[in-house]
């Protein structure tokens, strides 16, 4: 394992939030994968067979989450719904991120008319009310998993284009790219060696949190009974199916919703932890805290300089040449490494970048 990966792991682990995020995310992903590869055999009960003698039971050792109005085990239903929720959210985010990387790189690198068209289009799609738009599309296309995924992707890609374009613009202004161009490097070579290694970390961070957002929107579609086929177990729909029982049996209604919350929290805590760990400006302050050298206040206390290496985040995902800029002086704690700030990437819902720069 490279030293950078070790360092990143240490930074992540120093933060209770990201540890929680990592563990939660891992547990849900593993459960979803197990559910798929075992063809649904890991659930303790059959999630679909009614058993009216056992209806409306509270949580117990036999039924961890209790049973619903037809006596079906809620824990088993939740497990059965994980692949749907997890799978669609990840598919939406991955597709959107790929679209963003392709369109954003092209727009940021070539500028001109193409850039103008893409960015105007992005602005328009960003102004749409997301949930209403995907509700409308999903409702019209009819219930199917593919249609739900499409309806989400339609409103999901624009932030990625903005994020990637902004990062590519910043990289393209660097001297080493001009030098590379002067040396007759091809477009693809520059993208592969200079642009992507600088762009991917921020996309990765943003996407991690974003899987949570996708999950929220997806389960909202489910809650509103739009787009997800009737036979498909889905957490949001489980909630709306029993909402009328809210006052009588609150656990039935709330447990699937809390599972959604935990999954989303897992992704967003992990994304938040990743972002902070990758933020070179904060590193000295985080590490000082861990070692008890001084307080996080001000900038006293000596921090080993490799920790603040500006090349840090770039080394994480392949070593771009941009990572080895000569003359990058690493100052003592309290100051950012000279000029090579890596934007930790998006915020919770949409990148703010570009607004003032545009």
């Amino acid at each position, binding site marked *: 394992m490279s030293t950078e990966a070790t360092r990143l792991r240490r930074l992540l682990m120093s933060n209770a939030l990201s540890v929680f995020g990592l563990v939660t995310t891992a547990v849900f992903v593993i459960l979803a994968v197990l559910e798929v590869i075992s063809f649904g055999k890991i659930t303790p009960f059959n999630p679909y067979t009614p058993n009216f003698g056992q209806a409306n039971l509270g949580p117990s050792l036999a039924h961890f989450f209790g049973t619903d109005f037809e006596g079906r085990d809620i824990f088993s239903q939740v497990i059965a719904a994980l692949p749907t929720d997890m799978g669609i959210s990840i598919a939406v985010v991955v597709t959107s991120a790929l679209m963003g990387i392709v369109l954003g790189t092209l727009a940021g690198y070539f500028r001109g008319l193409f850039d103008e068209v893409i960015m105007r289009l992005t602005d328009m799609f960003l102004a749409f009310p*997301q949930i209403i738009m995907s509700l*409308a599309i999903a409702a019209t296309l009819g219930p199917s998993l593919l249609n739900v995924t499409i309806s989400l992707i339609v409103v999901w890609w624009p932030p990625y284009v903005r994020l990637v374009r902004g990062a590519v613009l910043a990289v393209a202004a660097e001297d080493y790219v001009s030098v590379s161009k002067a040396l007759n490097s091809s477009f693809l070579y520059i993208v592969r060696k200079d642009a992507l290694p600088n762009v991917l970390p921020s996309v990765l961070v943003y996407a991690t949190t974003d899987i949570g957002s996708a999950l929220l929107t997806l389960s909202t579609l489910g809650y509103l009974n739009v787009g997800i086929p009737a036979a498909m177990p889905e957490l949001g729909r489980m909630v709306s199916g029993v909402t009328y029982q809210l006052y009588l049996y609150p656990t039935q209604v709330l447990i699937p919703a809390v599972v959604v919350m935990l999954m989303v929290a897992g992704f967003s805590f992990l994304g938040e932890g990743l972002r902070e760990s990758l933020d070179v400006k904060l590193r000295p302050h985080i590490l000082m805290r861990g070692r008890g050298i001084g307080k996080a206040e001000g900038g006293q206390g000596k921090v080993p300089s490799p920790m603040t290496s500006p090349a840090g985040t770039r080394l994480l995902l392949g070593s771009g040449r941009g990572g080895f800029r000569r003359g990058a002086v690493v100052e003592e704690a309290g100051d950012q490494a000279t000029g090579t700030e890596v934007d930790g990437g998006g915020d919770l819902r949409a990148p703010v970048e570009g607004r003032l720069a545009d």
Partner: protein
Amino acid sequence: MVGSLFVLLGVALIVFFISHLLNPNPALLWAGPRARPETVKAVAAAYHLNDPLLNQLYYYFQSLLTGNFGVDPQNGRPILSEILFYAPNTLELVLASMVIIIALGIALGYLSGMRFGTKVDAAIRVFYLTTWSTPYYLGALVSVLLFASYVPIFPSSGNGTVGFTYNSITGIFVLDALLQANWAALESGIYHLILPATTLALLSFGIVPRIMRSSILDTRWSTHVKAARARGLEEGNVRRKHILRNALIDTTTVIATTFGWLFSGTIIVEQIFAWPGIGQFSYMAIVSDNYPVLVACIFVFTVGVIVANFIADIIYPLLDPRITLGEGG
């Protein structure tokens, strides 16, 4: 400003083409699934549906510009008057949430950033990340259960207009009551507003303290703050004018973004709190394939988002003298 109009125009175009792409036969939708073929044909003729696409586009823009959103196929009422009834109710909810979001978001973000690495910081982060991770339906159901059922201190549904006769001036109930000095109506309005507005605000506000916090962290160790301290400025002054004001710039942007998210949130929150707003209206339109209404709703929401961004553009120059109006958007 020109940019905003451009976006609006583009959105109108996209809505037009998407609704065309999605509906092979809008006349059939209009007339209903069991309509006779003559009826469907008559509808198609009346609404220019047999005309070339470009002509339809012309009629579409002509109607939009004259504020004519057409007639609601389900009850025959003009859609504009329905929108004018529902939109102010949503605006009331959204503006009340906005006040809570701005106050709480900036305060928590500032506190969290200034206490970086402490228990206070950790607690605030867990709080806003958790509320942000909570689905709207969970948050709304829990607050109904807790504050309208277990500890019944707030009403669980409606916006409090029942039982009051009042002249609609702005359409916003609380504001109307205030303008006409109808204190009982005002009390009822505020009483009904508190729970849904707080729920909507808490579930949407996570991004504000998060950006506020990271802007504070970006600023508080920067050289200009050091320089201010080195010049001997008193600490309160440094914090107010050098740290807080700087951090508010990015935060203004996300507050504008949050506005759009509030609109999305109203779909669920209005549903659960039986709030007669445009979120519920548009959801009903979606599930009943009511495209004329849906198009109008999408348009109204988009205008809301654009106006929010425009207001943010006006606020930037006040916060940051380097930005002048006109460059922002």
